[in-house]
């Protein structure tokens, strides 16, 4: 991941340069200039008839009539916007790891990324404008481990992972697809019939106990951090006391030495064995034992890492919101939230974002989303909840349809700007991807060239740039 801090001096020099003259002497490197009818800098902020200058994978300038540096590639299109970011995906994750559940909080999805797998799905998603995905393996585990953000068009192994520890994943009340099965039932005449049953939803009490377990883990994380801090304080105190003691000892050393010599002499005279005086001091405090998993929950409880909880039903949502209210630094994100509408005000007040999966009904729809209302995103957004749109984190192929899912939410009443933010600047902000999600100076050049407004079903993606490289060539 590129660090913004490195670019900071550039901001000043570029500003100075642009104040005097249009940029002519461009820095060397791979340059691309896109002549756009319209640039969506970020949802709601549009610049007409401007050009975008990209050098070395970074957006350097968005302005009218930029002179192309020598050797720069020139592209043009009706609309330029930031590449789509799927905040809830499994694209590019090794299939076994997706369903595997024996993981711990410190297991990293980054380690389950298969850079060589699912090439076809990745290509399709890229052609549909999805340039990066937040991937979470083991979604069915109570705690699924650390998710990552992965580029769909990395340059070799460099740039593959944009963020390796993006958030901690968890889930409550998900149906085990392998539950249920078949059994024999004996009829009145003594014959047996095979009875097939689908996966059984999790017992309500078990679902609630899962909330308790997550809260318990958060508490353990807090306790762990408290013990670490207490240790640091104790250690400092002890060290100061010891330093004091050493000063004293140094001062008294001459006397101590004299005394010792005298005692040795005396002991000799009396024919006794000389014994050293016993030294006593306070024992040093003991460091708490390192625990990688508790450390993760400590970071989460302290707001250093978001916690993404997949939860759908009212009872679990209510319990989760109540039980986590006391962790005032926690940065929680709800994934799914099928029945989250009644909690909209509370979610907005607590700044909890929701990743909605406006799932199409019918064959292949996921159980947990039964009862999903396409107006959920709109309802939440109306109450000023940050809404993100994701492909559901179950099927690798689903990421391709991200913009269609956003369109579905628009159909359900979500404003177009909100819908675009839900798959660009929104995920970038919620997951701390500072160089993604907008078309402006200093951002990584993950750009789409469209022939019309984004998220319209009649618009198609003309070309895609990732990290400044043209990875989907212009059509025609």
């Amino acid at each position, binding site marked *: 991941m590129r660090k913004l801090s490195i670019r900071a001096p550039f901001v000043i020099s570029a500003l100075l340069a642009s104040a005097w003259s249009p940029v002519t002497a461009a820095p060397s490197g791979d340059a691309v200039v896109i002549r756009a009818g319209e640039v969506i800098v970020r949802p709601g902020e549009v610049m007409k008839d401007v050009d975008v200058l990209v050098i070395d994978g970074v957006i350097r300038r968005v302005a009218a009539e930029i002179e192309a540096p020598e050797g720069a590639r020139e592209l043009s299109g009706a609309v330029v916007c930031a590449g789509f970011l799927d905040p809830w995906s499994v694209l590019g994750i090794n299939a076994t*790891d997706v369903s595997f559940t024996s993981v711990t909080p410190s*297991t990293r999805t980054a*380690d389950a990324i298969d*850079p*060589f797998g699912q090439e076809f799905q990745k290509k399709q998603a890229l052609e549909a404008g999805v340039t990066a995905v937040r991937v979470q393996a083991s979604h069915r585990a109570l705690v699924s481990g650390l998710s990552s953000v992965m580029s769909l068009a990395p340059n070799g*192994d460099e740039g593959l992972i944009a963020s390796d520890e993006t958030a901690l994943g968890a889930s409550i009340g998900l149906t085990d697809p392998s539950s249920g099965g078949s059994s024999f039932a004996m009829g009145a005449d003594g014959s047996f019939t095979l009875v097939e049953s689908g996966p059984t939803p999790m017992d309500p009490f078990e679902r609630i106990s899962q909330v308790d377990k997550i809260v318990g883990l958060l508490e353990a994380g807090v306790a762990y951090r408290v013990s670490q801090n207490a240790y640091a304080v104790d250690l400092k105190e002890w060290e100061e006391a010891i330093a004091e003691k050493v000063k004293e000892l140094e001062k008294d050393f001459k006397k101590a030495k004299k005394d010792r010599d005298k005692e040795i002499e005396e002991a000799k005279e009396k024919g006794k064995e000389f014994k050293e005086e016993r030294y006593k001091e306070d024992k040093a405090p003991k460091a708490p034992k390192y625990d990688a998993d508790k450390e993760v929950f400590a970071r989460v409880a302290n707001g250093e890492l978001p916690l993404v909880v997949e939860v759908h039903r009212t009872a679990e949502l209510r319990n989760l919101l109540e039980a986590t209210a006391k962790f005032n630094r926690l940065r929680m994100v709800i994934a799914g939230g099928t029945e989250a509408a009644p909690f909209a005000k509370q979610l907005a007040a607590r700044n909890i974002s929701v990743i909605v999966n406006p799932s199409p009904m019918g064959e292949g729809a996921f159980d947990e989303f039964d009862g999903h209302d396409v107006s959920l995103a709109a309802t939440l957004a109306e109450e000023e909840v940050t809404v993100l749109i994701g492909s559901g984190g179950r099927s690798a192929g689903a990421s391709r349809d991200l913009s269609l899912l956003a369109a579905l939410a628009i159909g359900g009443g979500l404003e177009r700007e909100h819908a675009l933010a839900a798959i660009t600047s929104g995920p970038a902000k919620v997951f701390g991807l500072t160089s993604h999600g907008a078309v402006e100076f200093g951002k990584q050049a993950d750009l789409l060239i469209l022939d019309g407004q984004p998220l319209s079903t009649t618009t198609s993606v003309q070309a895609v740039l990732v990290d400044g490289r043209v990875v989907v060539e212009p059509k025609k």
Partner: protein
Amino acid sequence: MIHLTRRALRTMKNSSALLSLILFAAAPQASAADGKLVIEAGKIVTLTGEVIEDGKIVIVDGRITAVGKDVDAPWDADVLDASDLVAYPGFVEAITSGGMDRSNENVDIAPFLDVRDSIDPVNVTFENYLRSGITTINVQQGSGCVIGARGHIVKPFGRTVEEMSVKPRAGMVLSASPKRGKSRATQAQALRGAFTGLKRYLEDTVAAAKAGDDYAKREAMYQGREPDEETMKGRDLDCSAWKVEGMKLVPRWEIDEKQAPLVSLVEGKIPAFIYCGGAMDVRVAIEIAESNGFLHKTTLVVSGDCDRAASWIAERGIPVIITGSLTRSEINEETDEMEDVFIPKAYADAGVRFALRSANSTTQSLAYQAARCVSHGMSREDAMRAISVTPAEILGVAKRVGTLTAGMDGNVVLYSADPFSVDGVVQRVVIEGEAVYDRATDSRVRHLEEGIAPDNTEQVDPRAREYAGDGEGDDGDAGEED
């Protein structure tokens, strides 16, 4: 000293009928008088680019002293007449978990164990190695681990591991592909955890040592005596990837035996063999090796579609050992047609140095695997290098084995013809100057070819047995590793 022991044993063999019973089938056929042997070969292929017709190989005290057409041989040396045979250096098996009583441990991280305690000298595997002209074998734990036991390089001759030993503590196996009960992510987590755990352990050990020293100073001050002289007992950690300050305070022998082998690993003192079952494992393997400073001592043990990551491997300049099948099929995305990939060629084209491994469902011959490379259009030199010089380099024994030149160990394989042709069979094998194998007296070969069972066994004509399948589809490779 080894030499003396062997001679003593030889005397015992000659005098004791009882002992000869427990010798394995390929007993020594000729002994070099006073450790001197001259092989007079019809042709010598040195694998340094030189081919000598009617030449001599002189071996004194186990080492080659001269190779050439007109070289002086000691007057009292034994002579092995091989005028109708072709001499090659003994081939090198880059890695195997054969020859052990079991190939894997239950513990995830087991470098405190050593395969020498598991090697079974009378295991038929070693006899087969000898029979196919392989004279240097890197025995390592199988892939079912996170970090395996320490390996041992042996020769396939001797009745104890000590006799067989070429190089002890010869690196260790790590696995980037999941062992049973783990996923890719949890395997990587365990692997990474081993090294972060090591760093934390070393830091704690240093802190404890420092606390102890400081306490001793204060105690001395309080008691009115001069503090004890500080002695530098340890030395700095020589790891290029991360540092632990104050390692001078910790003598190396105080380091826990479970952690000590990992210290050697991160200091780049021993080779690492990292199993990769597929291309996605390569990324994790490289990352672990790079972030812990032993990438330059790393060899990837590759199978499956790892060759898809060949350019990544080439970029790091590390070699691979190809295991499993030498071919695989993949669908060409553009033409949508099934294409066969010949794996060694994929690595060679990417510029990756590779070694082959003998394991195969039908033979245990490295020469056969190399011959397949030639049949797929690779050069004889490249193919030959993959079973001699390259594995020798990978194992860090290139100054001892891999070519027939003065100074090398006296390991010579005498073929009846070109080893890449169907009628090229191993007739004689010499290891460290001792003629240890002769096909003419190989009882198992005779049993197979002539139906003559070895002494004291039931006479059964193998050809009269019922046909029980040709082994195809049995997945012969998989058996060894898991």
